[in-house]
């Protein structure tokens, strides 16, 4: 079941006695915040950050009038969601450009965060923008790290400057000279991964920084990182004054709470998200999507955006209109599944669908296909009228559908519930003005 529904179910329980009185009381908020806190911790938000966040949100929530259009649960989620979005900042993936060429971008981060791969992605990204980047190999410690950068650079069609295991300070200085002589306008320096408590290695970064005065110092963070994110981000930022954060490996199923931790402790913008091993897998950061991901609401928005490329423009417009007018039907639900099937990468897309993602183990394709098949069979066994208005489904209609689709009543009910949830979520997102195409 989607994680979103598990949080909202818990909140529903908290608010089950409400409805009569018109305001959210302190006690109820306190109970609700307990659930929110757990959800945040389960998403790897740092425990201290979560505490501060909860305090802030509680203040906002207490005494708020319950809006007619929303249930208390929805309202609390709305406040939490808005606050998360506000905290995580804007969709700003612009890289600063230096007044005097070349612009220097320096990478930093722990071992295995994904810096070298990111170097290649950024190089390609800049190249596509008409820039002429130069990659510089300064990881002189990890075996074959420079080899890796050379392959990545080769794939991106970007030159790689390296001087073997020579001191990174000297290599980066020479790289800048090289860039100036040969007309490279951007220099991307790959550095070795290091622990934030490794004094020698942290000093090395400080020396490189001093030598080449980078315009951008990016801190690369593995989105699967846990509680230690705060300490890591804080130390790197204090030592280097990083200019931005980059999250990697977001194509996994991590809830990514570290994003909030790192952002809260550094205050620096999240400039990019890395979402795959291919060079093109670089995306801007969308705080609204990250918020729903942390809350476990299923990353419906990303799903929709990716679906755009599979669904035709026209279909997408229609779908958008339906969401807006809240006339999204089971037929559309079916179309969505069909589109997903045509998209490839069905796994990660499905993981974002409410009702299929979350806790379900997505590593077994057969189950996914089977589930999708089942959903299709159920919807196809309905009459047109039923598909448009599932509220007319009484016991005898359901019995017919069960027989027609070879499923069970439970499965039919589950589908209807998931569909309702998707609809609700669409509605809520539209209300929150976070729904855009």
């Amino acid at each position, binding site marked *: 079941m989607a994680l979103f529904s598990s949080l909202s179910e818990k909140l529903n329980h908290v608010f089950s006695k409400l409805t009569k009185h018109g305001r959210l009381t302190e006690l109820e908020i306190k109970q609700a915040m307990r659930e929110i806190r*757990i959800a945040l*911790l*389960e*998403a*790897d938000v740092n*425990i201290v950050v979560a505490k501060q966040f909860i305090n802030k949100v509680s203040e906002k929530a207490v005494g708020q009038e319950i809006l007619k259009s929303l249930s208390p649960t929805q309202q609390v989620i709305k406040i939490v969601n808005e606050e998360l979005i506000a905290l995580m900042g804007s969709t700003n993936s612009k890289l600063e450009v230096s007044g005097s060429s070349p612009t220097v971008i320096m990478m930093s981060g*722990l*071992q*295995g*965060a*994904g810096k070298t791969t990111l170097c290649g992605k950024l190089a390609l990204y800049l190249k596509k923008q008409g820039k002429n980047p130069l990659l510089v190999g300064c990881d002189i*410690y*990890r*075996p*074959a*790290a420079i*080899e*890796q950068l*050379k*392959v*990545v650079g080769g*794939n991106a069609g970007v030159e790689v400057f390296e001087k073997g295991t020579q001191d990174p300070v000297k290599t980066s200085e020479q790289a800048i000279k090289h860039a100036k002589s040969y007309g490279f306008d951007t220099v991307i320096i790959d550095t070795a991964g290091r*622990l*934030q*408590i490794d004094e020698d290695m942290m000093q090395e970064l400080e020396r490189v920084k001093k030598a080449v005065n980078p315009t951008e110092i990016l801190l690369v963070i*593995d989105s*699967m*990182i*846990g*509680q*230690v*994110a705060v*300490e*890591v981000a804080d130390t790197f930022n204090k030592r280097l004054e990083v200019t931005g954060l980059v999250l990697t*490996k977001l*194509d*996994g*199923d*991590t*809830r990514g*709470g*570290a994003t909030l931790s790192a952002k809260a402790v550094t205050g620096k913008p999240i400039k990019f998200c890395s979402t795959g*091993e291919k060079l093109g897998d670089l995306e801007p950061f969308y705080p609204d999507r990250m918020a729903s991901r942390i809350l476990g609401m299923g990353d419906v928005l990303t799903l929709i955006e990716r679906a755009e490329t599979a669904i035709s423009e026209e279909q997408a417009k229609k779908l958008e209109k339906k969401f807006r007018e809240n006339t999204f039907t089971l037929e559309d639900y079916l179309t969505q599944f069909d589109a997903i099937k045509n998209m490839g990468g069905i*796994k*990660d897309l499905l*993981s974002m669908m409410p009702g299929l993602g979350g806790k379900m*183990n*997505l*590593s*077994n*394709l057969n189950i*996914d296909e089977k589930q999708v098949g089942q959903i299709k069979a159920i919807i196809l066994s309905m009459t047109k009228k039923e598909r448009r208005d599932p509220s007319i489904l009484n016991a005898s209609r359901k019995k017919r559908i069960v027989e027609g689709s070879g499923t069970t009543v439970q499965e039919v009910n589950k589908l209807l519930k998931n569909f309702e949830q998707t609809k609700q979520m669409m509605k809520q997102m539209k209300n929150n003005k976070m729904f855009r195409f």
Partner: protein
Amino acid sequence: MGLFGKFKNALNKTKQSFLSKLDDLFKRSIGDDFFDELEELLISSDVSVKTSMEIVENLRDRVKTERLKDKDFVIEIFKEELTNMLLEGGKVEIETPAIIMLVGVNGVGKTTTIGKLANKFIKEGKSVTIAAADTFRAAAADQLSVWADRAKVRIIKHQEGGDPSAVVFDAIASAKAKETDILIIDTAGRLHVKANLMEELKKMDKIIKREYPEANLYKLMVLDATTGQNAFSQVEAFDKDIGINGLVLTKLDGTAKGGFIISLSRELEAPVCFVGTGEKIDDIEDFDAKEFIEGLF
């Protein structure tokens, strides 16, 4: 340096903050604060929220029913309980002829661990061959070759972009011909949600079993101590697809604790076999549950 010297050293770096936190704890009576802070201590070490709440709740009950008053004693029995949880994971002895396959998500330290393991086994007098079945990541085989040189072991590798199963096939043939004690297989990092990559792993698993059924196969999953709650999802998926016999916890020289292994190892019914404590060839230790738990406090 003693057997667990380095391990302890690595954990020592963070001991300070925990001990001072605990000192604060000790000053107070055994009340709600005591348990709350104990719970926070666990959550801060990336023990799962659910497990943290459960085990602290159990402790609370026990303190109440047994009318325990002495805080030192309560902490001691708590540590003991945690250690026992870890021990429920069981034990793995590597028996030759062995095939060890290391799996895990990207960047956790698989290749580095293989270098360290090869060296360790060589020192124990075993013969070792390693197979570069990460044919995907750029220069992965080059990286492993450097480790093969350092540990002075044979390496079987193919072209980048080749079929990893073919590497496994050749490596097994070679290990058999040379009567190698231990064959260690490096695999490409893969996120557990990528079905096609998991299929590739299943295929390798199948080939090993088919080609060398006499060998004892150990599928070790490498986990990075800095990982948070996603560790559970990772292990669940890998275990479901190929079956995991043991865990390796890397990067314990940092400040992250890797507390997730406490419940993970028990649920998986597989032990943590080794821990990584740095980037050098000797930075590997056998795992010791008691030391690990001591290190948290």
